[in-house]
């Protein structure tokens, strides 16, 4: 096994265990913290794919900003352990295993499509995830969708400010 493969399997196991813990944790704050670990594992996968920019933006935006807001809301709401109906651990694990099996089935189906036949994931190769090629692509080939999505963000921001002022 090469170093890359070891890292890949370790990160995958880390991501899956953390994702299951998000669902299993009784305390919503613990769930948020496990979710942050999931984002870190996914960023690790991005780095294996040589997409450093995506990896770091994933951490800044999801783990650094959105999850802080989640924590904020949960802390302010002061969710009590008893107030939320808790399912039994057995039921939860049954759900996790059933969902996981369904995901495996879907992946098996997707793998049979003609575009993906005989294709392999290229680890640590390609430059599209680095900041220079990505910026070039965004501002030349995809400039229109990029600008339109930024207008969408702007309108969402204006909406949030207006709601906040009421």
């Amino acid at each position, binding site marked *: 096994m090469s170093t890359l493969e070891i890292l890949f399997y370790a990160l995958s196991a880390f991501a899956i265990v953390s994702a299951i813990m998000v669902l299993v944790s009784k*305390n919503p704050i613990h769930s948020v*913290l496990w979710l*942050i670990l999931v984002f870190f594992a996914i960023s690790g996968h991005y780095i294996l794919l040589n997409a450093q920019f995506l990896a770091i*933006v994933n951490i800044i935006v999801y783990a650094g900003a959105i999850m*802080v807001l989640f924590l904020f809301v949960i802390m302010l709401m002061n969710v009590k352990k008893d107030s939320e109906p808790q399912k039994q651990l057995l039921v939860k694990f049954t759900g996790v295993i059933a969902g996981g099996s369904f995901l495996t089935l879907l992946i098996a189906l997707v793998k049979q499509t003609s575009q993906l036949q005989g294709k392999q994931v290229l680890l640590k190769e390609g430059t599209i995830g680095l*900041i220079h090629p990505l910026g070039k692509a965004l501002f030349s080939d995809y400039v229109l969708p990029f600008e339109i999505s930024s207008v969408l963000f702007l309108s969402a921001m204006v909406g949030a400010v207006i709601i906040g002022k009421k």
Partner: protein
Amino acid sequence: MTIIAIDWAFIVEKLIMIAIIVFASLGIALYTTFGERKVAAILQDRPGPSRVGPFGLFQPLADGLKLIMKEEIIPNAANKWLFILGPGLAMTASLMTCAVIPWGSAVDVFGRHVALQIADVNIGILYVFAVVSMGVYGIMIGGWASNNKFSLMSSLRAASQAISYELAMGLALIALLMTTGSLSLKTIVEQQITGRYWNIVYQPLGFLLFFITALAECNRTPFDLPEAENELNFGYHQEYSSMKLGFYLFAEYINMIMSSAIMASMYFGGYDLPFFNEASVAPNIAALIGVGTLLIKIVMFIFLFMWIRWTIPRFRYDQLMNLGWKTMIPLALFNLLLTGAVILAKL
């Protein structure tokens, strides 16, 4: 059969460098606490710590020993794991920043060419930004896990302050990146060494904004609202004792050192000693002079942080938010536009 093919010498080299940098930061942080007390004493016209050792130089060791010997208390109603995790996270996040700072050019040791930087990644500044945004978790988790309303209030303050000032910090950074065209701190420093002036000449407003946001991100006066004693008793670390409290206090000093190092690298030429030709001495000595220069720049920034702390009173919370959203962000946007216009005019 080799299971793992790794360049072991490379790993050992990096591990040694990480160990040196982490322990050096801890040591400098220890003496920064001493420096803080001395600077406060000088500004308030009193002698300051002078009893332990010559000129009171062993005072930080005595303080550290005192912190370690104190009783560890975990409140009954606290969330035990998160209560322990909080200070650890704060410390880890503040130490992680040092990975991308170029401490010097390169030295030749035992026939190996060793660059004095742990990782020269293509996204250096964004990495710093990500770690800074992680730093707030230590405070939030610790404050919440203490199960104390003052701690919770304080951690919420810290989080909202950090988020608000991160925006202005990011915008100030973007203006700098537009002039450098690179995110790697090493490249930015090298550009300043070969170029005519340091970046401070091109980005004075950007530096001012970055400095103010750095004060806010480090929770230093006048932005130390999370530790406003008169409103919140003590702040997010109110329930902490012994070395867990020490970790929070230490993390603040390490944050100060790291942000000084970053400001020195981005705006003040990093390890560049002005009016000195590095090629005139042996490469190893030149590298050491570079490290010394960077350390001197860091100490000057830390002194500035302390000077401000003991001169300016703290803001009110609404003033802090108004400054962040209604002054800093528009100024940063203006700086961005100005930089863009100048770059366009030069084309």
